[in-house]
């Protein structure tokens, strides 16, 4: 109950409900739960988004937290499995693991508990009772690249990655591909912080990039990105006329970019985990759980989108350009690269 402020006074009530949930769950009533990674359900990122999806689904079905849906928060890697198991024993029908960090544990759990359905977000597992949900981040990143390439005045862009990993590589390659598709002469400075929660490192990197004339930075680095926003805002504060931007990730990071009357968040590459979660839940309800399958959510599936909140910065021109390229992706005209090798051949082909 701690996750949502409104619930904090009626703990005892929700506790009672918890007991009821165990007793009254019948075969028609489905119950769904999720296990977060270290980020927690309020990480303004995919954990939060997944939780919002589950909540929305629950409301639709007249359920309440602890009675039909719930989440378990993990403080560390060591917590994943106990959390999953607890939810299994609380007889939840479908358990989401959010984040690639949970891959191994969901895999194991799926083998151990064949009666329960599982879903992993952001990675892949193989089990008949588990579905893998991933996103086409490269496609979204491509569009972010298009937006950045249209925005830049210096023809220098930056990418700040969290940990160098196949997942974050998808962001990087998609972004670069998008940029180069618009203008092959634009340079992209790529740096990995090797951590998702070191704002100082993010700020150091951003400071370095901005002082090297980079004017738009796309970050895919969780809390490290706080430092990027900070640096951008600081520059903006000192020099309101300077054109300087950040592109957010996972959720719409418009809030983070606010500085006085300005906002440095050009746009954000939004991952609609909530959409994906609800889709999977509905499939389960319909008796069509896609066990063993791999669901990829891209632009087409409404799993990926580009935020258009900052109407001042995100101009009509940019919007049109992005839409144009989006069409090309949807129509299959271009295939956005996901790895360094694919990116190399993509650029070569330009």
């Amino acid at each position: 109950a701690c996750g949502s402020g409104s619930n904090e006074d009626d703990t005892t009530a929700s506790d009672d409900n918890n007991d009821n949930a165990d007793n009254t769950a019948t075969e028609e009533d489905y119950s769904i739960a999720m296990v977060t990674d270290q980020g927690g359900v309020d990480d303004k990122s995919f954990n939060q988004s997944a939780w919002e999806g589950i909540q929305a689904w629950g409301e639709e079905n007249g359920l309440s937290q602890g009675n039909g849906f719930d989440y378990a928060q993990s403080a560390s890697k060591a917590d994943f499995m106990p959390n999953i198991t607890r939810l299994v024993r609380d007889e939840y029908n479908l358990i989401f693991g959010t984040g690639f960090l949970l891959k191994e544990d969901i895999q194991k759990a799926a083998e151990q508990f064949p009666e329960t359905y599982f879903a992993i977000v952001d990675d892949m597992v193989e089990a008949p009772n588990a579905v893998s949900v991933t996103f086409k981040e490269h496609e979204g990143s491509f569009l972010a690249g298009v937006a950045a390439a249209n925005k830049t005045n210096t023809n220098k862009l930056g990418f700040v990655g969290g940990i160098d990993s196949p997942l974050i590589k998808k962001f990087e390659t998609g972004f670069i591909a998008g940029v180069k598709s618009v203008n092959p002469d634009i340079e992209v400075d790529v740096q990995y912080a090797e951590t998702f929660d070191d704002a100082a490192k993010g700020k150091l990197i951003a400071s370095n990039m901005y002082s090297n004339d980079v004017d738009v930075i796309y970050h895919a680095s969780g809390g490290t990105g706080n430092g990027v926003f900070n640096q951008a805002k600081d520059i903006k504060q000192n020099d309101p006329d300077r054109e300087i931007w950040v592109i957010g990730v996972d959720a719409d990071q418009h809030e983070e970019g606010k500085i006085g009357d300005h906002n440095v968040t050009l746009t954000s590459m939004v991952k609609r985990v909530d959409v994906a979660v609800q889709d999977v839940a509905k499939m389960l309800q319909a008796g069509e759980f896609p066990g063993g399958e791999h669901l990829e959510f891209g632009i087409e599936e409404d799993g990926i989108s580009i935020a258009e909140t900052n109407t001042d910065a995100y101009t009509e021109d940019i919007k049109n350009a992005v839409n144009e390229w989006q069409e090309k992706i949807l129509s299959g005209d271009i295939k956005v690269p996901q790895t360094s090798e694919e990116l190399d051949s993509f650029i070569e082909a330009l």
Partner: protein
Amino acid sequence: MPSNKLFALLVPIVSVLMGLIAGAIIMLVSGFSPIDGYTALWNGAFGDSYTIGETIRRSAPYILTGLSIAFAFRTGLFNIGAEGQVLVGWLAAVWVGITIDAPMYIHLPLAVLAAAVAGGLWAFVPGILKAKLGVHEVIVTIMMNYIALFTTNEIIRKVLTSGQTTTDSIAPSASLASEWMQSITFYSRLHYGILIALFAAAIMWFIIQRTTIGYELKSVGFNQHASRYAGMNVSKNIVLSMVIAGMFAGLAGAMEGLGTYGNMSVTAGFSNLGFDGIAVALLGANTAIGVVFAAFLFGALKEGAGEMPTGAGIPTELVDIIIALIIFFVASSYIIRWVIVRFKKEGK
């Protein structure tokens, strides 16, 4: 004055009770029910065979990192580097577990050994710098932690996989996992590592209390001048102490790599096994037996904490607060002794 043994037993018990009482007060103040909270905590740690299994599993690496820090402490050294030693131990164990093909009776011991050796080597650096150049081990071990974090990540990505974030699973012949243990604990991840941890505690006790090695190590910890006067090699003992401490921490890595997870992933931050080990060692008064008990206490509290948000709506951090308070009370045993003595006097 009551006997010291009685105190040694009473103080931690009183401290734990006081910590729990303080926790209850915090729960009351923030509008939670302590009874629900502690019921959830208890259920989360000992509610059924599964949680018991997980509690024990969680305690195993705590025992080892606790031993690591306690061992160094006995020689007058502060090993803040257990964190890094765990990581390299974990990596080495998994590396051997993946790459070597051998029957279990060779493979498993080899993988476990690799972890110990890697941890020992990692601790050798601060040890030798301290012994030969007098460089403070606290700084070097802190730096070595970061180096370990970044290098293990890089090795996982570049050497053990091609750009992936998780290694392959270790061969079954190198695994500590036990189907039998899992089956009696409703598929908890309880593995044979706990036996290694307990064995390590016995070893530490034996080395420190019963051998000439321990005699030298403690002597150097107490008084380097007298130790040199007595013909002991002070440098050698400092290095040896760090290396043994590192080996314990390396073994904690093996618990994770060969037991709990069976692989290793790139991580964004520390596992905290090493930092929590400091608390475990100190709670256990730097003795082997004490460390075992403290590790179980720690394991139970941490494991049980997971149940508190779902079971009673209480944030898990409350358990951190309780643990911290318990540590305070143990540390301030002077005042507890004083109170107990007072109490006894009044009673008479």
